[in-house]
């Protein structure tokens, strides 16, 4: 005990803490970097090149090296291997997929999108994590696991971003629609796809709480700004961001009541009728809302406001149910006009 000095103990402790943080930091810690490099085998690189080529027609070797984060040497050796296995063919400078290569690429895309669907339906991971997790998992799933996954999810057609999922036999739905920045003013459309790459733009779309499958009406659209209304909320986007949202113009018979709004926009003493639950509410959450009676045609009204503003208690089918804001904004309503204050 004679040599005891609290300052030394304290410093040793802080050094240990700093070391642990360096090793286990999720972003660039030694441990996770190690895991990543361990996983970055040739197989992964080959599959990533296949995906890249599937989405981009006229790519040269230089383009591939620029787009992917692998080392120069690894990509070159991968390309050689792919050439010998006839997954790709070279036409002058351009690298192109053969039929076999395309089949393989579709399998990886299927794995990626199925896994995203799985994450959205069966787990609690946040939206912004789906893509990165699927990027890892797509290389790990075997054919058998993919079939099981598809079966578990009921052979879904689209992933949670609205991208089509290729079938086992390589069929893929071709989606129509244009990007939001090109939809003319006053026209009414429906959001059918939200692109999750690049991450920065996706983050902005998420922050604005724009929902897949919501019906939109363009108010203003020019080089500087795209303004549109959806679910009773007005959104303003720059055209760069709007380009990452795909919409489909709606035929007049498919247009919902233009007065549709989110339940979160309901005010005290207003009553409303539910038209449905947004596609953004998924899995267990969606089923729970249905179980509680938030179904088409049900009447709803605010029962209690919280002292801290969230959650709000709604009166539905004679029961008072409290929902958080992120739930109530995924329930669509039309406000009943003319019967306010009738209680």
């Amino acid at each position, binding site marked *: *005990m004679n040599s005891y000095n609290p300052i030394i103990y304290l410093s040793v402790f802080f050094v240990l803490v700093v070391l642990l943080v360096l090793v286990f930091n999720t972003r660039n810690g030694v441990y996770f970097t190690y895991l990543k490099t361990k996983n970055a085998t040739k197989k992964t690189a080959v599959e990533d090149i296949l995906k890249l080529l599937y989405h981009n027609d006229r790519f040269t070797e230089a383009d591939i090296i620029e787009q992917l984060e692998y080392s120069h040497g690894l990509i070159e050796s991968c390309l050689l291997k792919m050439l010998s296995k006839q997954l790709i063919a070279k036409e002058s400078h351009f690298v192109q997929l053969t039929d076999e290569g395309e089949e393989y690429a579709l399998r990886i895309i299927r794995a990626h999108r199925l896994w995203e669907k799985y994450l959205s339906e069966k787990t609690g991971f946040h939206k912004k994590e789906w893509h990165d997790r699927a990027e890892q998992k797509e290389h790990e799933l075997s054919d058998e696991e993919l079939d099981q996954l598809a079966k578990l999810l009921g052979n879904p057609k689209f992933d949670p971003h609205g991208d089509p999922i290729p079938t086992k036999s390589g069929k893929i739905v071709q989606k129509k629609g244009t990007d939001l920045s090109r939809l003319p003013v006053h026209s009414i459309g429906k959001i059918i796809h939200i692109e999750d790459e690049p991450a920065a733009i996706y983050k902005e779309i998420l922050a604005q709480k724009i929902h897949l499958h919501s019906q939109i009406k363009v108010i203003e659209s020019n080089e500087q700004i795209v303004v549109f209304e959806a679910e009773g909320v007005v959104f303003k986007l720059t055209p760069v961001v709007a380009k990452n949202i795909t919409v489909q113009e709606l035929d007049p018979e498919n247009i919902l009541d233009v007065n549709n709004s989110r339940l979160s926009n309901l005010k005290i003493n207003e009553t409303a009728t539910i038209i449905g639950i947004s596609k953004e509410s998924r899995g267990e959450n969606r089923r729970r809302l*249905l179980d509680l009676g938030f179904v088409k045609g049900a009447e709803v009204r605010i029962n209690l406001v919280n002292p801290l503003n969230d*959650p709000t208690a709604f009166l539905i089918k004679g029961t008072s149910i409290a929902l958080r804001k992120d739930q109530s904004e995924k329930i669509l309503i039309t406000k009943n006009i003319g019967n306010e204050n009738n209680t």
Partner: protein
Amino acid sequence: MKELEEFDKIIALSNELRWQIGDDFHDDLTEAIYADAAKIVKKTVVQNSQKGTLGIDAKIDNIVTSKIWGFPLMLFLLGFVLWLTIIGANYPSAMLSSLLLDIVHPFLKESTAAIGFPWWLSGFLVDGVYLAVAWVIAVMLPPMAIFFPLFTLLEDFGYLPRVAFNMDSLFKKSGAHGKQALTMSMGFGCNAAGVVATRIIDSPRERLIAIITNNFSLCNGRWPTQILLATIFIGAVVPESYSSIASLAAVVGIAVLGIFFMFFFSWALSKTVLKGEVSTFNLELPPYRTPVFWKTIYTSLIDRTLIVLWRAIVFAAPAGAVIWLICNITLGDESIAAYLVHSMDGFGFILGLNGVILLAYIVAIPANEIVIPTILMLTVMVTGISAGSGSGVMFELDSVSATADILKAGGWTLLTAINVMLFSLLHNPCSTTIYTIYQETKSLKWTVVASILPVIAGFIVTFLVAQIWRIIF
């Protein structure tokens, strides 16, 4: 064979058709069923009035969820329940302990001696097993018998869901469910009961959070430790006229610190290991109703108090045996207990504790109630001062100052007391709670996490306090 082929064809066709129908099919079907059911209900079920919107319910709701009255009312009620529990339990506890410890214990000792039990058998059974069980009953039963019925009454009346409603946005910030406010409060009574109460949270992620962090609620078994140490050591550093206020503030401070740790670990868990678990939210606010008083009292005694007490007894009995054994089996020239105490002294010193305290917390895993008696007994044994009634026999003293003398003889300082108070808040749950956590989660992994996490927090906090204290003073 041919039939099988036909089957396969049909299945393939159905898969194909299903795919053509599209993703919305399932949802549309479900929604249609619900909508039809709603229509049928509307036609056939007559509702006599729009309940819950008018009258007394709305008036109560407007008060208990109002900006001005909501939170003070809540704090007042929780404080009142806790106060009533702690104060009210003193008398029956004193009666029980004088009966079980001062009358029955000597009687058992004498009668076993009279029928000719060897000393080690009567020591093992009476001083070890019986004493631990008696202690747990005397300290645990009265507060639980007061706390749980009060809590259940509030629950039956319909007030508690409103508390969850008011508190939700605070808990949401740390990734938890508003109902965790209730399981946390229940934990102030007993962590095992708090863990069972998390069944009201029906979202998997939030429920696990509530289970793992329930131990940060200072339970009934730990309040007496806090109060005793605060009275002896914290009360002594301020002028005498303020001493009771200072010690009260210290105890409340520890409980509040526990709430802080609960929020912190809820947040940390929801952002790391639990972020993949499914998370949903819903909270029903049922109409108020007059509780069925006697029925409530009866069921809360049976369902909560007795079950928890039984589990505690089951775990306390072997602990008593172990305590007696380690004190009475000698290796070389010292008992196992003395050997363990000495070998842990160094580590204990770094944490601002000592070997006696660490050993007491290890052998007292079954019940926090026996920590102080064990500490006293071990201190007397190690220091060799004369008090208590022999090695392996737990005891407690009626006078606070006599207790203080023994602890000070054991080398306790203000730092030791503060760190024991902190460690009492931040250490592994008792074995009853650990077992209950396993029962509720059915997962070894989460049971281990829930058991280890608070100890690590306790080591870090006491370590930091000890070093900083020694640098400053």
